[in-house]
């Protein structure tokens, strides 16, 4: 009987593990191997050692895409978390039609990012400039200016991500027992003080979840870029994922972009691990 149990476990684990290795580990290893070649995506190729990696660091376009991706991720994460916290506090207060509001505020999250991007593309190109013109301001689309196009992407990413983060903050706020506020109220902790000294410390685990989710998702941004700017104008909004897709899949830079992807992968792991370490140390202090 004991044998039957162990045999069953092995018969479950081995085929599924094999599937995972086949379509996750092996492509990952192949990606690393390609990064040491000058493969174009077709035809023959030869080994170039670490030249792709050296070229990466001197390639202006790659450097620009990292700067843009990190700027986008950091700004959007801050915007999203501040707004979601405020929204979550409002949605968790004593209001009417609570479940209606919660349902409505979550709506953006279920819609496909690509189509949402197309809708906002129209909004930025036609509606917003017309409003600006009526108010006597500069009436060009923010997406057509290399200085401001990234703001459009922040807005669209935030519009969808706020829904998710708000829901997580609400479930955090619900774990705070009512008597904490009552006891705090006796000590004069109300309003901002209450939030700073009572509410926020108690929902830090949820804050950590949101930070990790946000940063990881925004670093990998792709759909919104595809729908809003396609990396333009003047390559000012090329995210790392978009650059790898665009130049690696159809631009003949298969090998070079593989090296880029390897660096990107290592960066994502480092950022995630650092965030989790930081979150754990914060939670231990409490």
């Amino acid at each position, binding site marked *: *009987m004991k044998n*039957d*149990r162990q045999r*069953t*476990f092995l018969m*479950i*684990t081995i085929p*599924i*593990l094999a*599937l*995972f290795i086949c*379509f*996750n580990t*092996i492509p*990952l290893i*192949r*990606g690393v191997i*390609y990064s040491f070649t000058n493969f174009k995506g077709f035809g023959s190729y030869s080994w170039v050692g670490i030249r792709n990696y050296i070229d990466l660091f001197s390639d202006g376009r790659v450097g620009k895409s990292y700067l843009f991706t990190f700027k986008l991720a950091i700004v959007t994460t801050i915007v999203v978390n501040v707004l979601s916290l*405020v*929204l979550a506090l*409002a949605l968790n*207060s*004593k*209001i009417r039609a609570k479940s209606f*509001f*919660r*349902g409505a*505020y*979550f*709506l953006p999250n*279920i819609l*496909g990012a690509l*189509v949402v991007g*197309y*809708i*906002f593309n*129209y*909004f930025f190109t036609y*509606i917003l400039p*017309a409003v600006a013109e009526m108010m006597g301001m500069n009436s060009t689309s923010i997406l057509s200016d290399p200085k401001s196009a990234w703001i459009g992407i922040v807005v669209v990413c935030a519009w969808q991500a706020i829904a*998710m983060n708000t*829901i*997580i903050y609400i*479930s955090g706020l619900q774990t705070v027992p009512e008597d904490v506020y009552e006891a705090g109220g006796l000590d004069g902790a109300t309003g901002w003080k209450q939030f700073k000294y009572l509410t926020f410390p108690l929902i830090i685990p949820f804050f950590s979840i949101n930070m990790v989710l946000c940063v990881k998702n925004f*670093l*990998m941004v792709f*759909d919104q870029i*595809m729908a809003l700017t396609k990396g333009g104008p003047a390559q000012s909004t090329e995210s790392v*994922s978009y650059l*790898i*897709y665009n130049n*690696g*899949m159809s631009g003949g830079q298969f090998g070079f*972009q*593989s090296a880029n*992807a*390897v660096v*990107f*992968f290592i960066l*994502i792991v480092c950022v995630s691990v650092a965030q989790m370490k930081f979150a754990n140390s914060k939670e231990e202090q409490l």
Partner: protein
Amino acid sequence: MTEKKSLKVSVYGPMVFLILGLSTIIFPLYMTVMIAFKQPSEMTNSISGILSLPKTWSLSNFREAMVVTDFWRSLGNSLLITAVTVALSLALHSLMGYALGRNKAHSKFYSFVYLFIVSGMFVPFAILMMPLAKQTAELHLANWAGVIILYVVFYMPMNILLYSGYLVNIPIALEEAARVDGASTWTTYWKIIFPIMKPMHATVAVLTALAVWNDVMTPLVIMAGSGKNTLPLAQLNFQSQFGTNYNLAFASYLLSLIPILIFYVICQKQILNGVVNGAVK
């Protein structure tokens, strides 16, 4: 008196804020519906021309958009891929979560496999996409079947984490009792453990379905040469064909949003619960 006043502020303040905030969600959707129903001739260059109600509520844009984007076939592909992926995820990921969850505490092999698969969560699609495009072509999997296999692999880390986490709450005594009655581990799993994990199945189904339904990148990279589309991929591929006929484009956007909107209206509670469970666990 002052207490009453501050109570009023604390009730109406959030309410006003929430109603104002809601407009930022409703406005893009309102704009979409208005443009989708209008004719190009009604779209004068002023905002009022774009945002006013259409003169007649005609479905002609939708009919045309359905033809241009081959709507029903794309919808069918999307439904097929999502349904099969969810079914396979529930079956395979729960089994794997069970095998790993029950053994990782006392077996080095299983705890290694668990960590190995769960750390797959950090692998960005960007590094996999080029090798996978090659590999699926070599294996003749550059089609919807290949996309499904990839989804089953991509969502495995997250779902196994969820399932084996949930399993901690299910007492092992249940299985031992069944074993004493002579049931095999396999039978016990399907008769007892699988049904008990129902709340986690709901979470996994919701998370997987939403992610698969809205995903653009995997079908874009894998199915690009197959001539077949999913709903989001059709939007991407036919975007240039709309030209400046925004009414047609918006009719098509709206069409592609309708299935998920219907799903959301029907299962809103399960979706919200599922998303929260998935993130917090």
